[in-house]
């Protein structure tokens, strides 16, 4: 039996004649942070959406906690959450109301205590009763991250979670994620266009290009394999080869 929490095998998604994801396979172990790197249109978002059950794969399988996502959607998604710079929460609700709805949706016990924890951890106290539409983009990013961590997920999918944050808050967020991983064994699939962040956060990285995995390994291994100075140089080389 595999020790991987997430097992993706031969995953493919075609939209008509366009192949968004092409025969992608990877595992994520317990407490592991896997970086998903690639230029725009490489298939990162489609991979995320398939792992969240929002898009049906054309072929291949996604298993989490030993269960197949197609057959055990509810049981799996109960233990998975996500955050993205590109999503929001209902604007007409306050920060606290939004968190409370999410907590109820996942059937959380000690809802109030967990919301208080998140508000404290992500320094949202001053604006917890503010309407979501009045938040700055950085505050919104923190709220979506709080929403993702609130439900005690075992797998977290993060799409550019620090994109609109100032360096101080971004650093704090990374520290929180690493602490969560340390204390709860949280497994994370992480995308970012900040190469330093990817190197700092990821145990392993897979590089997607035109829907295919073109490189896989630790940041150091990938940099060495391509004979470049750092991950950013690798990114530029691969992206410009498209």
């Amino acid at each position: 039996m595999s020790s991987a929490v997430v097992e993706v095998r031969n995953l493919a998604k075609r939209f008509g004649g366009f192949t968004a994801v092409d025969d992608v396979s990877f595992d994520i172990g317990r407490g592991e942070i896997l970086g998903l790197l690639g230029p725009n249109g490489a298939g990162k978002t489609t991979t995320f959406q398939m792992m969240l059950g929002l898009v049906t794969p054309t072929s291949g399988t996604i298993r989490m906690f030993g269960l197949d996502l197609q057959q055990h959607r509810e049981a799996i998604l109960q233990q998975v959450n996500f955050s993205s710079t590109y999503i929001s929460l209902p604007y007409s609700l306050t920060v606290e109301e939004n968190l409370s709805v999410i907590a109820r949706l996942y059937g959380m016990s000690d809802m109030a205590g967990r919301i208080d924890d998140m508000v404290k951890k992500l320094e949202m106290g001053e604006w917890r009763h503010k309407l979501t539409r009045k938040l700055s983009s950085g505050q919104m990013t923190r709220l979506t991250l709080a929403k993702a961590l609130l439900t005690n997920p075992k797998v977290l999918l993060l799409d550019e979670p620090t994109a609109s944050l100032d360096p101080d808050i971004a650093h704090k967020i990374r520290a929180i994620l690493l602490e969560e991983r340390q204390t709860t064994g949280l497994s994370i699939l992480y995308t970012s266009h900040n190469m330093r962040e990817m190197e700092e956060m990821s145990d392993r990285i897979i590089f997607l290009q035109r829907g295919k995995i073109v490189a896989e390994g630790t940041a150091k291994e990938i940099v060495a394999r391509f004979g470049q100075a750092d991950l950013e140089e690798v990114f530029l080389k691969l992206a410009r080869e498209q």
Partner: protein
Amino acid sequence: MAYHRIAALVIRHLYLYRRSLPRLMEIIYWPFLDLVVWGFITVYLATFQGEMPAVVTFLLGALILWDVLFRSQQGITISFLEEIWARNLMNLFASPLTPSEFLAATMVMSLFKVIAVSMVMSVCAWLFYGYSVFIIGLWLIPFIMNLVLTGWIIGVFTTSLIMRFGQEAEVLAWSMVFLFQPISCVFYPMEVLPSWLRAVAWINPAAHVFEGMRGLLATHAPPLTSLSLASGLNLVYLGAVIFWFHHTFNVCKDRGSLVRVGE
């Protein structure tokens, strides 16, 4: 079905209504305005009482019952649109929430709306025109239940179209129900329709409810045939549109359009 997930969605919508004047107007202002306009028309028509007996009862009763159907449909489609406007569908469907639970929550919201609107209209009709909807008696309950079901059917059907065709189809949330109004025979009997349209009206459950209501008021005979037809048609259609909603949901997931509905 997980009831806590249905409750979460219902609470999310109640939060919206708690501080939104336009949303409250939808429950109070529009039904009230409808009643005022139709009430005056009815008062005027009542001057011909000799030629059209029980005109007040027919028209105001029909208006209130039509609003039950209309608000029931709106309860479903507007709840879905709220999620599109808030770009919240991705948050919801990436959670353990199932499409059936989502539909169930919109149906609960629809019931809340129907109850609120019916109370507003019934009280206003009684205060301003001395009309009591309870003149129909206990038959009012199966009439309302059937109209709620018909509203759900049109609502789920419209929601599926919006999900499939995106925000461009949003206008259907307000207009679709009026496509059914002429063949629902709300304010006139089915027999006034041309024969081909009568055949279309016959397969519309709402038409049997309104026929039943008029029959009951005119003859006091129990509207058993009308209610049986309405209930039977409603159950068949409800099963069909729920199936179609799930099918559309899966098609959207396959095409990747579920996450882009609001774009």
